[in-house]
């Protein structure tokens, strides 16, 4: 580093305080030449009580910092101004503080209290910037203060401050890794945040602090997928990369299955080898069920695809690598077009994209073939781009396009850029080895290049020809002769060495010329490069063994010369070869085999792309680009053999929140026309799209049985209704008051009028048995306090399932469960339903139990969304009308004041909601009876109230009976 420090000084080094200042320097003012005085002046300005002077001083100081000058001695003077009223001065003081606090820890502590005050400021920008600076001061003593500030900011009302908190997490972690556990808690909390602003930053923090804690993602996976399109572009990159890794651990390989064999058939030959391999790998698993993509896997692919249209190259690349690593082969093709588009961008972007395309084009050649011409090289491209394009072109070459590619290569060979020409010759060599049909054409072309005027071109050709000849030497003795003649002219050592090796190796094909070449070489031996000398010895040895009559003396001569060579490697080689080939009485058994040793058949070299096997690094990563593991690189895990439990991603409460989001949009549209919606890009059409998306998704995840169970349950409901009509408990409960907080908990009530069914056991995990459950919203007859859970068992397996029952119930204290009656037999393909009751004690705690068949046990859990914790209450028509009548005045009032009024009881509230909804009102008129719901117990969500007053309009449109 001594050299570099010297260099530094030359360049106006960073730490030289005493160097003289010149007029153009804004910090010097051009008046004061001495360092001491200059800083005195600044100090004076900082001490004055005029903001403009302070600002001027701070500007000069920042200019010094920018140029790498040391301004640390001003620290006390600057730090005094941390509480300055002028916001620009304040900001510049922050800049200064962050830069020098590490060096002056004690003094830096003086400023902490200002930031602590800032953290409480009503202005969110000030809160956020106080946290930013506080967390950027790298002073270990304040770690506890930082921790506290981060924790507080993580639950701040402003999403901007929460975002800043997410940014602060890695800062604190790098300062004190021991805080990891606490920080993970904060990360977990922020991961659950529903704003797009926070999502990117918290995933970034996750990646830096605890990338291994993949389990934290489960519950947020679907939310992240759905938010992705609205997250800012930098966050998108980070989230997509993280989700790629996540998906690799949670889903099955979509290409490890027989189902895409039809695709293989249509594909080009390139996949054949791979196919073979995969077939072998498949063999033991051949009996496996056909692959069905996990709906969550599909969700990820579907939600990332539009981002290929992003203007940000990093986002496009991130999606491209996600598709490359995760998508079924048939779908990967979509990324090619987007990647080719990026080639128009800045040359640095091109460079990175081409590196990745080069790797991809080895694995999936077909993908880029239609874009072959986009990789043609222009004379104005920088050399590094040219070489990469050449690499891609070579990878794309096959029997059909090779003639076009070779014609293109011919133009490249005439280029002025010699490095590029050399690379082209290499590329031709690779094409020739890979595609047998053109080997002779290529060889002829290369031989013609041997008469090129540029020595580099000739040398490169020789090296490539040597490799090609090794494949079928017997056919090409004339080329070897031609090359032997070249030894007179070519001076490039590598080329000379190659020619000598060729002649030695195939001396039988050129029996007359070989000894002559050796003669010439012996003459010039002393002037040759080492690498050539070694090959001369080699040639001599080989000739001695095949044609000792002519070359005995020459060989002796060469070996003698080598004996006294300066290079020990050459001396060694000479000694070793002499012992081996020249028979003496002392020579060992080896000399008998000398001929076999030297003239053994050597395998032809394989010319491979340097990008082969690079895809074990995650594409688009720094490690992939450098082909070496960079610090902090997270390995891309292999696909799991069997899919881990997909139910871990189920988030019932969150699910309904998502649904609420969509309904909110819908309702708001109805009421207020097109209002800006917070979740999407402020446009009604897209909102609708979102809705459709989430609807689709629902149907994806729930399968068609949704509707069926729906109608079924409504039927059974009508049967039950009369028998339960005068349950005294229900009636008592009806008048239970609700407080205002309950209104909030209604946000989480599943708003769909349809019964939503949830998956209890996925059919893959359940080995054919799938179980879904829904909250049937029926009174549970054995115990009025229990919530009825209707379970639907479907046997998708080929064999029947027996003795379905539950065992080993694990509950929170106070909760109770009434088990469903055992199902003795469930034949293959059949469906059965059963009802169980759970008393959740008005909490959203999950009920865990084991579901047992005669052969297996599955751990399952049921967690109720708040909205399902209801009790049905029966009302006659008259009663209903009476209640409705009481509410007429209410309906005329705008909804918000109503909701903030806590004096209403639950039934009124719900009726009000019904009345608001015109459609439902119409059906209500014809009602003979009506169900309404009493909510069992309050749950407080103060945060929601603060953040989203709009959401109060969310309506629980529960089931309200049916038409006569």
């Amino acid at each position, binding site marked *: 580093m001594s*050299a*570099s420090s010297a260099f530094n000084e030359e*360049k106006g080094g*960073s730490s030289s305080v005493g160097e003289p200042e010149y007029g153009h320097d*804004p910090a010097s003012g051009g008046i004061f030449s001495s360092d001491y005085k200059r800083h005195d002046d600044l100090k004076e300005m900082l001490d004055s009580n005029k903001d*403009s002077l302070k600002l001027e001083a701070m500007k000069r100081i920042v*200019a010094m910092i920018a*140029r*790498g000058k040391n301004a640390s001695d001003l620290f006390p003077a600057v730090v005094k101004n941390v509480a300055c009223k002028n*916001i*620009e001065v304040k*900001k510049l003081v*922050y*800049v200064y503080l962050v*830069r020098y606090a*590490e060096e002056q820890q004690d003094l830096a502590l003086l400023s902490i209290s200002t930031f602590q005050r800032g953290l409480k400021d009503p*202005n969110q920008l000030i809160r956020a910037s106080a946290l930013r600076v506080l967390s950027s001061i*790298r002073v270990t003593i304040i770690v506890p203060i930082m921790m506290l500030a981060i924790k507080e900011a993580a639950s701040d009302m402003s*999403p*901007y401050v929460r975002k800043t908190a997410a*940014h602060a997490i890695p*800062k604190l972690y790098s300062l004190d890794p021991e805080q990891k556990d606490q920080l993970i808690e904060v990360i977990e909390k922020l991961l659950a945040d529903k704003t797009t602003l926070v999502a990117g930053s918290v995933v970034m923090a996750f990646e830096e602090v605890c990338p291994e804690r993949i389990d934290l993602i489960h519950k947020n996976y679907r939310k992240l997928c759905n938010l992705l*399109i609205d997250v800012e572009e*930098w966050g998108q990159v980070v989230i997509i990369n993280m989700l790629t890794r996540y998906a690799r651990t949670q889903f099955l390989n979509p290409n490890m299955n027989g189902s895409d064999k039809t695709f293989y058939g249509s594909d080009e030959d390139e996949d054949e080898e791979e196919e073979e391999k995969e077939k072998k790998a498949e063999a033991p698993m051949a009996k496996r069920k056909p692959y069905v993509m996990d709906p969550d896997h599909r969700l990820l692919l579907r939600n990332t695809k*539009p981002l290929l249209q*992003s203007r*940000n*190259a*990093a986002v496009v690349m*991130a999606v491209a690598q996600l598709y490359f690593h995760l998508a079924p082969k048939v779908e990967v093709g979509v990324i090619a*077009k*987007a990647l080719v*588009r990026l080639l*128009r961008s*800045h*040359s640095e*972007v091109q460079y*990175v*994209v081409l590196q990745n395309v080069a790797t991809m084009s080895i694995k999936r050649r077909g993908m880029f073939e239609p*874009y072959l*011409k*986009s990789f*043609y090289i*222009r004379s*104005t491209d*920088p050399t590094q781009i040219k070489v990469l394009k050449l690499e891609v072109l070579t990878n794309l070459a096959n029997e059909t396009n090779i003639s076009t590619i070779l014609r*293109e290569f011919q133009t490249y060979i*005439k*280029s*002025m850029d010699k490095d590029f020409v050399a690379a082209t010759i290499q590329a031709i060599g690779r094409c020739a080895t890979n595609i047998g049909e053109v080997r002779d054409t290529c060889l002829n072309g290369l031989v013609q290049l041997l008469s090129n005027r*540029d020595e580099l071109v000739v040398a490169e050709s020789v090296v490539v020809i040597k490799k090609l000849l090794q494949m079928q030497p017997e056919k090409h003795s004339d080329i070897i002769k031609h090359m032997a003649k070249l030894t007179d002219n070519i001076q490039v050592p590598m080329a000379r060495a190659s020619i000598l090796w060729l002649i030695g190796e195939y001396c039988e094909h050129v029996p007359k010329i070989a000894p002559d070449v050796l003669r010439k070489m012996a003459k010039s031996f002393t002037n040759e490069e080492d690498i050539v000398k070694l090959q001369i010895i080699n040639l001599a040895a080989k000739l001695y063994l095949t044609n000792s009559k002519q070359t005995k003396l020459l060989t002796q001569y060469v070996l003698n010369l080598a004996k006294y060579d300066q290079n020990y490697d050459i001396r060694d080689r000479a000694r070793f070869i002499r012992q081996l080939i020249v028979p003496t009485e002392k020579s060992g058994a080896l000399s008998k085999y000398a001929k076999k040793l030297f003239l053994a058949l050597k395998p032809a070299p394989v010319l491979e792309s340097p990008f082969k096997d690079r895809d074990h690094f995650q594409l688009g*990563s*720094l*490690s992939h680009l*450098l082909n070496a593991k*960079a610090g902090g690189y997270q390995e891309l895990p292999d696909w799991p053999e069997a899919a881990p439990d997909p139910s871990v991603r189920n988030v019932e409460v969150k699910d309904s929140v998502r649904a609420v989001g969509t309904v909110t949009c819908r309702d708001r549209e109805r009421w207020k026309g097109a209002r*800006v919606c917070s979740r999407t890009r*402020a*446009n009604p*059409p897209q909102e609708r799209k979102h809705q459709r998306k989430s609807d689709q998704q629902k149907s994806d995840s729930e399968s068609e049985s949704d509707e069926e169970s729906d109608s079924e349950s409504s039927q059974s409901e009508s049967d039950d209704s009369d028998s339960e009509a005068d349950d005294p408990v229900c009636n008592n409960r009806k008048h239970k008051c609700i407080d205002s907080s309950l209104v909030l908990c209604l946000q989480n009530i599943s708003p769909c009028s349809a019964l939503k069914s949830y998956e209890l056991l996925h059919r893959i995990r359940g080995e054919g048995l799938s179980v879904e459950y829904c909250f049937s919203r029926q009174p549970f007859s054995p115990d009025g306090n229990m919530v009825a859970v209707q379970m639907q068992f479907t046997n998708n397996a080929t064999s029947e399932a027996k003795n379905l029952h539950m065992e080993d119930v694990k509950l929170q204290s106070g909760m109770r469960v009434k088990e469903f009656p055992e199902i003795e037999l469930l034949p293959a393909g059949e469906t059965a339903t059963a009802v169980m009751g759970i008393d959740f004690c008005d909490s959203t705690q999950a009920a865990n139990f084991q579901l047992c068949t005669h052969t297996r046990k599955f751990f399952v859990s049921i967690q109720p969304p708040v909205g399902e914790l209801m009790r049905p209450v029966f009302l006659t028509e008259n009663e209903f009308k009476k209640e409705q009548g009481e509410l007429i005045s209410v309906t005329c009032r705008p909804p918000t004041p109503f909701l903030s009024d806590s004096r209403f009881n639950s039934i009124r509230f719900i009726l009000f909601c019904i009345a608001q909804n015109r459609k439902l009102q119409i059906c209500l008129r014809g009602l003979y009876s009506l169900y309404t719901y009493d909510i069992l117990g309050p749950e407080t969500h103060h945060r929601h109230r603060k953040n989203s007053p709009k959401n109060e309009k969310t309506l629980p449109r529960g089931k309200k009976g049916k038409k006569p």
Partner: protein
Amino acid sequence: MIHSLFLINASGDIFLEKHWKSVVSRSVCDYFFEAQERASEPENVPPVIPTPHHYLISVLRHRIYFVAVIQSEVPPLFVIEFLHRVVDTFQDYFGVCTEAAIKDNVVVVYELLEEMLDNGFPLATESNILKELIKPPTILRTMVNTITGSTNVGEQLPTGQLSVVPWRRTGVKYTNNEAYFDVVEEIDAIIDKSGSTITAEIQGVIDACVKLTGMPDLTLSFMNPRLLDDVSFHPCVRFKRWEAERILSFIPPDGNFRLLSYHVSSQNLVAIPVYVKHNITFREGSSQGRFDLTLGPKQTMGKAVEAVLVSSQLPRGVLNANLNASQGTYTFDPVTKMLTWDVGKINPQKLPSLKGSMNLQAGASKPDENPTINIQLKIQQMAISGLKVNRLDMYGEKYKPFKGIKYMTKAGKFQVRT
């Protein structure tokens, strides 16, 4: 992510440094200088350079290297794209992005960098948000600030930061409401010796300058949207609407922005506006070479081809050229061997030509490389792909804006091989 940023000028001086984490000594740039020395051309410096403890990722814009220092794994494109965004922001703020402009505005630059990255992770890169935080320097504002003592720094969180349309600030007001759209297409083509097209594609962009009051919601529809099958959008464009109806619907950012860029790759759609007749030969044994070049319009749909500029990198052996241009002027730089011919407008009645001889180094053998000819040109009022805007509508605001659409075709990387 991004630890530090160094700005290095063409002569190798580090003229600005900024650190977002602990300070990284500027000696780390020595690795960059080494790589720079190895590279023959400035643009051949590898964008990613590994050093023992850091990685250097650099971009070259306006003859300034922006070198980012990173310490651990990060997608290289992420950093590259960010650095370009920094340059774009500087350009936006100062008009130009030169060493002088950066040095003059070093405080603003520092404030900008401070806002753009937090702990190395991008925080605010949207120009509208930044402009609310840090107002661009203008002479008028500087004067007002000196007199009134107000500052360039915003005190409130920019409205865009929290809104669903972060690219637009609220409370925009104009007396003249206007929206201009420029459809600019560039032809990238390689023409071979015989004049046939080897590859040709069109890179198009629609740049907009929108100065509208309030929160206008615009829709832009095309006569022939099927041309646009490979597009990338500004984040404001509603992708789903485009997918379904092929209509661009968006709430525009305030001011200048690139609405979309597209790529027409199918060759048969690309019309080549000019042809080149060339005869460049070097005779064996003589130190003379012939140079003969004629340009003519081809498929221009009746529009004039303007601002034609021909350049060619002649072989190293060429000492000088004695040429005669029938129109315009030519220059030959004997050091770089670059021949440039500023043709101007092509008159179809009298085709421009450049004829004459070249002198080669005495005794040098005939150069075996052929120079390629690069052509720049402009055609006004036409998009070569035939793309046409159908109509532009505005919703959400009451006033009537002034709307304008301009078409232009340019040559991008247009090369003729000889």
